């Protein structure tokens, strides 16, 4: 047990990122609540961030870290706009169920 904790390597970070990303994908695909879908998207973005940071560390390259910072900023902006839209939708509809938000389809 100690062994694992002491020997955390790049592989562990990458696996963690992959698991987070998979969870994010599953959330985006399966959940119908738009808020949770957006949270899942955040999860995917952050999984990507972990990967980027890991590789930056791996290659001793600071470009990767700055790239991760840009991703965080963009994600914040995106979530702000997304939440604004969701709130606007919720005010009109009293729900944010993506299956029922299908007016534009017709």
């Amino acid at each position, binding site marked *: 047990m100690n062994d694992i904790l002491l020997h955390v390597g790049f592989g562990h970070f990458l696996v963690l990122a992959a698991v987070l990303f998979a969870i994010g*994908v599953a959330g985006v695909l399966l959940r119908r609540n738009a808020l949770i879908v957006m949270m899942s998207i955040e999860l995917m973005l952050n999984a990507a961030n972990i990967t980027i940071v890991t590789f930056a560390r791996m290659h001793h390259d600071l470009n990767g870290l700055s790239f991760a910072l840009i991703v965080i900023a963009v994600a914040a902006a995106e979530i702000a706009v997304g939440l604004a839209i969701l709130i606007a939708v919720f005010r009109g509809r009293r729900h944010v169920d993506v299956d029922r938000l299908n007016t*534009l389809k017709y």
Partner: protein
Amino acid sequence: MSTLYLIPAFPLGGALFNLLLGRKMPRWMVHFVAVASVAASFGVVLWTFANPLWHLFAGRQEGQPVELVQNLYTWIQVGDLKIEMAFRLDTLSAVMCLIITGVGTLIHIYSTGYMAEEPRYAAYFGYLNLFTGSMLILVLGANLPVMFIGWEGVGVCSYLLIGFWFTNEAYATAGRKAFIVNRIGDFAFLIGMFLMYMATKDLGSTSLDFATFRDPAAQTAYTASSWFGERYAMWACLFLFIGACGKSAQIPLYVWLPDAMAGPTPVSALIHAATMVTAGVYMVARMSWVFAASSTTMAIVAGIGALTALTAAFMAFAQTDLKRVLAYSTVSQLGFMFVGVGTGNWTAAIFHLGTHAFFKAGLFLGAGSVMHAMSGSGDIMKMGGLRKRLPITHATFLIFCLAISGIFPFAGFFSKDEILAGAWGMSLPDVPRAYAYVLWGALSLAALGTAFYMWRLYFLVFHGEIRADQETQDHIHESPWSMTFPLIVLAVLATVAGVIGFPHLHAWHMPSLLHGLEIWLEPSVTGSMVSQATDLRTGALIGAATLMGVAGIVAAYVLYRHGPSKQVEQFTSTELGNRLYQASKHKLWVDEIYDSAFIRPFRWLARALFELVDRFLIDTVLVGGSAWVVSLFGRLMRWVQNGQVQRYMVGVILGAAAVFFLSGRAARPAIEWRKVGDRIELRAYAGAGLQGNGARLRWDLTGDGEWDLKPEALDRLSKPRKPGEPPHQIEPEKDYLSDPVIVRHNGSVGPYVRLEIIDPLTHKARVVQAYVPMVVSLSGTETQP
């Protein structure tokens, strides 16, 4: 001469005017244009005939053609085939043109009276003009293709005019029948035309011009042996003759003509006399040089003609419709003409064509006049006693009947006698004499029949008591002058036209006018093939022919002078009589035979093709099938494209996964090697991506069948074991040589190198072997493994 084109141009112009503008024009304008255009054409023919052509004729040289040619432009030029749009007026086509435009003018005049009540007046006259114009093109055409224009043109016009009252289904059918039967003949005509092209192209002449057919050099081509040892001429003429059978209503393609009476009566007169049916006879006479080159064809032509003459005469016996009797008589008389051309008796055939045009046009116009009086009915059983009510019609009809029966001195006497004498005197090479007697016998019987049924018709219509109902009787009236005038003119012609074709009698010296037609036609047809006759034979044949005519008339007089005959009824009530009567009445069931032999199988075929190709293949499989496939994909796509982003996302993710999986697979194992100095570098390709990177490799560089070990593993193996130490285990992961790039000294590798790649996902091992040929030993000498 430059005026030739005017001859067909006038009627065609009239047709154009009437068909395009006629509906908006007053009636007098319509028929004025129609009659004037044909009359103008007649005038041009007369002028050309009297001036340039006559001068040429008067100054003719022996063996030289007497002709006026006008070349309008080159119509078709393909390869060495060059066909001119050219007209030729020689003595033969001049005679034809005179008949067509002359009789045509009379029929046009007659139509103004007969069709006075017709609502589609302009269309009628337009078609009539078109008909005349087409026939003039046919006659004037200087080569076969130009003739074919007219040949097709009259076919179309006959369809238009026979089916003129197309609201009556039977009439429309008759029009279609005429067209289809004619098309069969036209097809054969085309084949004949192609064969003529084949026959003459080796002579350097590829214009299909009639002038080239009479070229003596061409004769060798005609008589050249072709398929089945027959001559070229035989095949070409046979097909051309089938075409003529279609147009000129000979067995087996005569069936359309009796039905052609569905058209207005003047149209029947035009078809039967001036245009259309004479085309076949004219064509054979026109091609006389070619036909004369094959006795076989000549015998066939004459035989078909005689058979048709006899059969049609028999069929006419029991017909009760005025026009139908006349129609069969036309078929029969055309048979006479074909015997004329078939026995090489060209002049007689054209002579009979001319006289027949006069009296047959007259008979039809007379019949029209009678039907006009009888409120449109043509049933001769309901007529009778019209002699006093229709004096002019009766008088002219009598003359025509005398003429067609061959009674002296009417025109038919001379022309029919010429043909009969020619049949007796036939002297075709390689054809037995007996054939001539058979032809003569058949024609004599047909002549007897002709006289009988024509006079039966005459007596039933004009003599005895009137059998019509009271209402019809009240309306009987003589026709207006526009109808009687043509009848009178034709009656005069039918009386006097015979003088230009007197029989040859050595005892008398006759002025040349009496053989005018023969002398006139001499430059345009090949020499007559009838043997010289003694005066005695000529006289005897004349006597026999006259006897036949008189016998027929007397028989008809005895049986029918008071109307329908009791003796005949008694005869037809016996078994034999009834059979004969039924056979004649039903026209020997030819229509029924054709129906079951050709039309029905053809319909079945059409039906089958319709069901199979149209309904099944096109409608169901191609049209319905493609729609079904599209809708199938549409339904599938609709499931995917439901407007939910999340479902699209599934596609994106599955696609991305597929891309990763496929691009990252372990590759088929491959080895690349090269020499670098005194070393050899071997490179393994395990594939790209995660799986490629994760693939495990094993090398066997020495080719000894064992996987090579890493040096440290070898080290370990070679170390002496300490006591108690377990034997060294080789771990596949660690101890085998597993680098993708291996560099070795030249001599320590090969010649066979093996590589194993194990897929990290499936654990499937794949092995590849490479041959490294240039193996240099450490001492530097090269060895070839």
